[in-house]
């Protein structure tokens, strides 16, 4: 079941490569949030622990409701619905993401021969982290960068599952809270950037250099 959910996560990364609309990015975030929460719920059934339930609930709350709602609010406040496209579609991005997914899965398979890890979740996690990074590099819109960062965070969460890391649940909740505050602050910054750079919502941050 965990493998099925993580393969679906890989498919969201492929969709990320072919879409350029901000609204689709938010949908991807919601769907990834549900999948990540699902992975945790599955662990809950496999290994009964109240902590798993708390974390799955927190993932669902933060990653599928609070953060996407906040991003939609930013899109509306900044009137970005009318210029939803982050840039023109480019097939090269799809090729890059596909390459990243294949490379990550191959790496994970090789790694599993050295140390006990879950091959598909680990490969998917690495692909998620790299794809989020690629999105940040390939898109100039700051909100797309925030979404890239969130995809990296989703990948990171899956990484914890892939390598069977066992962090105390209080700390896991702390990381969610940190993430939420971070996105909140980034949202405020984007709002302020809009007033300073009205023409492009801060797409051209190149004032500071040596």
């Amino acid at each position, binding site marked *: 079941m965990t493998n099925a959910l993580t393969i679906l996560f890989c498919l969201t990364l492929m969709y990320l490569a072919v879409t350029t609309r901000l609204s689709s990015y938010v949908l991807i975030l919601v769907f990834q949030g549900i999948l990540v929460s699902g992975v945790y719920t599955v662990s809950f059934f496999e290994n009964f622990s109240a902590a798993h339930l708390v974390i799955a609930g927190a993932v669902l709350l933060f990653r599928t409701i609070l953060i996407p709602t906040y991003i939609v609010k930013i899109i509306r406040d900044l009137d970005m619905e009318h210029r939803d496209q982050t840039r023109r579609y480019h097939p090269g991005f799809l090729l890059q993401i596909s390459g990243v997914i294949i490379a990550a899965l191959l790496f994970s398979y090789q790694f599993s021969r050295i140390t006990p890890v879950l091959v598909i979740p680990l490969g998917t996690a690495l692909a998620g982290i790299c794809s989020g990074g690629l999105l940040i590099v390939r898109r100039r819109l700051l909100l797309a960068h925030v979404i890239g*960062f969130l995809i990296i965070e989703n990948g990171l969460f899956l990484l914890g599952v892939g*390598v069977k*890391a*066992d*962090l105390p649940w209080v700390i896991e909740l702390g*990381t969610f809270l940190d993430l939420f505050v971070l996105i909140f602050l980034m949202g405020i910054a984007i709002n302020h950037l809009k007033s300073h750079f009205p023409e492009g919502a801060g797409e051209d941050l190149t004032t*500071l250099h040596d």
Partner: protein
Amino acid sequence: MMLTILLLLGLPLLSTVYTARSRSLEKNHFATLATGAGHLGATLYLLLTRQNPFPTRAWFGLDPLGSFFLLILSHTFFAVALYSPGFLQRMKKPEYHPSRWLYYPALNSYLLASTLVIVTQHFGLLWVVIELTTFSLVPLIYFYRSKESLEAVWKYLFLVSLGLVFLLIGILALGLATKGAGAHASLVVTDLVRDAAKLDPLWVKTGFVLALVGISAKIGLAPMHPADIDATSNAPGPVAALMAGSLRSTAMLVLLRFYEVACHTSVRVFSQRLLMIAGAFSILVAAVYIWRSRDYKRLLAYSSVEHLGIITLATGIGGVAMLGALLHTLFNSFGKIALFFMAGRINRDLQTRQIDSVHGLMQRLPWSGFVFGLAFFYIIGTPPFGLFFSELLMLRGMVHARDWLVLGLFLVLLMIIFIGMSRALLRMLQSPQPVGLPTGKPLERFHVAHAVSFYALVVSVPIAILRPDFLFGPLRSILTEFGFSL
């Protein structure tokens, strides 16, 4: 013991809440100053008595390493708290109004978050609280509400958070390393050191590399330094002093926690080499950019990259050099307080950050010019200031280690930096006023910032010469904890 915990953690929390609710800047100042004094008092008490106020085998604890870094934080914070009312008094433009109200709550929350970083012994929790220091700095860096400060704060928030993602992966790797350590394995530093022999070296190595890459953005080590440079150079003087004097040191402590674990495993030599490479590369980058910089606040920010590079390099060498590195961390924080306080005053009075536009500082701003000049001689390591002695210890360590290549490279790069900084800062201090510009009465009077900066520079002299046991005792214990001997 409960009282010291309350002074270290409870007081900053209370002060954060109070200053966020209070509508009087004067009361906020006194609350912050009292918090700083209480925090410094508790830190000195713990350093003198060498006590750990926290229960043993818990997520929180104060070891000699923590006590030493707590002193750096407390001292810098208290200096900033002393200077803050004078700074805010001049910030009366309407656009600064929201920033003035956010200033003290952010400052107090920074103290709370940084103290938590220092006393936290669990790597997972450490990640949570180090992110809090980033959040608390956001309103402080964005104080001027200009395009530049907004760009700086965005880059800082984004790049440091991305760096911390790597740090978290490093922590996960360290968690994996404990799989072979049995049921008692945990991510608490003391447990990891105790079980070091059972840790998987591959995962410790992976964890250390990722932690170094991740925390570099916060320490300001090259090549992850740009966001830190932008933030430090665009923040107001006291905030820049706080960042250069304490934030980078606190981030360095996080790296040292990883290093402490690695030092007890077979990864020790690997981690030493890695630190040396990272340190040397940072000094090299600083040497290049100090020559290129046309903005004196950016130049001072690059000086921080240089000094953190020196500290990292010497930490990698170990032994006497590491003793020098620890002392250098303390003395660097003293120097950065003076330099950034003065840079902030020069910027405010002369309305420019361009090196070429500042002339005759000693005549126009005699107090700031004098202290700035003194701070310049301090930061380049002139005797009898503290940095001279810490650098001497590092050189001794390099000679002991017979690392002639590193020693040669270190000396050449220091020479290049010395000439580069002298070229820029001595011109600011001594060059005559261009014809046409008004000359006349000096623009300033003696201010508390001058007194605090002067004290910060001078206090390093007796510490370096007399080597008081309350400070050097813990330093020797730190070296023993890392497995080094003098």
